[in-house]
């Protein structure tokens, strides 16, 4: 028995007869009992990885095990070991919350009495008992995600795959979901989480890999990734782009972290936000350049990407097409 909950060795997945390489030689080890983050923009290959690990999709190359079972050779054992929930919140809209959970429980081949009791308990735990007998078409986005997650938990799997569980959710629903995930990990569940949000990965995941164009471009703890980035991003708005460019050489001296000018906005990653801001203002004022706006913010995935790859995370979306029209359509729906 392996010590890793999930192991992937040189996983490759191509689409359209090899034209699209969604995953290119991805290897990772997910330790048992932790949240492991798969961070990357849309089209980076996160969802493809989850689909391979949950036996929905076969890898074109490489191998992977989940809970010690090979995803290609022992798919039924893998399916018994996992729960899957994600951004599409695939609940049956015409069934009630309870009926959805019961269906998934029965399809997990659990004893009927257990399924009924467990479904009721999960609905209660996730604050959905008031809507248990309502058709899920009437559920809000946050309720749907919670139900989707509950469905993944009916069979109490040791390993949970969460594919962008909070994408598109309002802040309160995100917080709720995060609390639930933390509770699960405390209970011993291993979670493989994909996300586009650095703050989400930061809050939940111990270890992270960053995916771009189907390849791992960075890995480590979230603290390690952040240290690479700098703790804060200082964004200064100038009257014109020319002013921003004029300020660039002075501000570059302040930090060894990346600096970026887009239009009239200059962004620079710094370690000590407030102190560096004061320095920056002094320097620019001395040069007689006017600053019209200034913000300090936490670095985002976008900043990490800019730092690691030299391109913004959003740029990737346009050039990486999803594997099929059907998925594209679903993406558009969310």
């Amino acid at each position, binding site marked *: 028995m392996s010590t890793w909950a999930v192991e992937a060795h040189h996983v490759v997945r191509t689409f359209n007869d090899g034209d699209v390489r969604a995953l290119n030689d991805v290897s990772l080890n997910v330790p048992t009992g932790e949240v492991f983050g798969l961070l990357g923009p849309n089209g980076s290959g996160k969802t493809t990885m989850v689909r391979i690990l949950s*036996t929905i999709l076969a890898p074109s190359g490489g191998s992977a095990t989940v809970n010690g079972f090979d995803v290609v050779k022992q798919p039924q054992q893998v399916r018994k070991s996992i729960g899957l929930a994600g951004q599409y919140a*695939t609940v*049956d809209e015409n069934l009630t919350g309870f009926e959805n959970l019961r269906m998934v429980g029965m*399809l*997990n081949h659990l004893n009927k*009495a257990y399924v009924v009791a467990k479904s009721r308990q999960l609905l209660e735990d996730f604050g959905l008992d008031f809507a248990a007998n309502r058709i899920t078409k009437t559920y809000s986005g946050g309720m749907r995600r919670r139900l989707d997650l509950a469905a993944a938990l009916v069979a109490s799997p040791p390993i949970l795959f969460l594919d962008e569980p909070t994408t598109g959710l309002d802040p309160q629903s995100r917080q709720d979901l995060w609390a639930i995930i933390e509770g699960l990990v405390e209970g011993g569940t291993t979670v493989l989480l994909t996300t586009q949000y650095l703050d989400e990965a930061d809050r939940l995941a111990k270890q992270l890999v960053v995916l771009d164009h189907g390849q791992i471009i960075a890995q480590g703890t979230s603290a390690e990734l952040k240290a690479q980035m700098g703790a804060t991003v200082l964004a200064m708005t100038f009257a014109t782009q020319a002013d921003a460019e004029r300020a660039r050489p002075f501000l570059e001296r302040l930090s060894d972290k990346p600096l970026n000018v887009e239009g009239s906005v200059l962004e620079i990653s710094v370690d000590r936000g407030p102190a560096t801001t004061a320095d920056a203002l002094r320097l620019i004022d001395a040069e007689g350049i006017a600053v019209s706006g200034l913000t300090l913010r936490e670095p985002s995935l976008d900043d990490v990407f800019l730092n690691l790859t030299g391109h913004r995370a959003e740029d990737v979306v346009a050039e990486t097409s999803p594997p099929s029209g*059907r*998925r594209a359509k679903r993406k558009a729906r969310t």
Partner: protein
Amino acid sequence: MNLPSPLSTHSTFRWAVSDVLTIARRNLLSLIRVPVTVVFSIIQPIMFVVLFRYVFSGVINVPNGDYVNYLIPGILVQTMIFGSVGTAIGLAEDLQKGLIERFRALPMARLAVLAGRTISDMFRNILVLVVITGVGLAVGFRPGGGALAYAGASLLMLFFAYCLSWGFAFIGLVAPNAEAAQAIIFPLIFPLTFASSIFVPTLSMPGWLQPFANNQPISQTADAVRGLMLGQTHDHSTLIAIAWGVGALLLLAPLSVNRYRKAT
């Protein structure tokens, strides 16, 4: 936690049956929740009954003279076949919504999504059968074959439509969405249902069309159903219809299952 034991002692086979029933139950619940689909699948054949019974019947000549008795068994067969289009639409929608993905990540029997779907659609066909029989009786349909023969004819129709629905299942899995599935199926079933003995005797058709119209499976089924319901012997059409059904099932079920394995 005070929960019963999650473990179950059922065999693999019993679980496969349970999976099929779980999926069929889920589909039937959806049907009840969205009754519009069912209502429409009943209104359409009623319109056909009224149209042919009262508008076209004057210009259609049938051997025994009583067109309503010729018509209703035909409409029933047509409705079963049109109803099975729902198999394609339902599967295409499940795929589109990502439900099939969820099912594929569950340790359930691979066959269950398709078998559950075709079975729940057969239940819908039973409902339609009962309603249209009632409508038929109301407009003067008088089957003379007796209750047992009527039940036999009904079973034959349901069986034939069930076998065919595996082909529609395949189309539902291949089509990019539900609308496309419908668009693919219509040109396939239109010639089969209208160039057949469903509405008019094939003898009234041009000579070049008759060999096709006489021997294609839907005509054979319609002839067999009509023969049973009216108490008229009709060569070997019952056996031929059963043979078509079995053949279709043997060909289409593996095709669909294979497609399901690959569908994403």
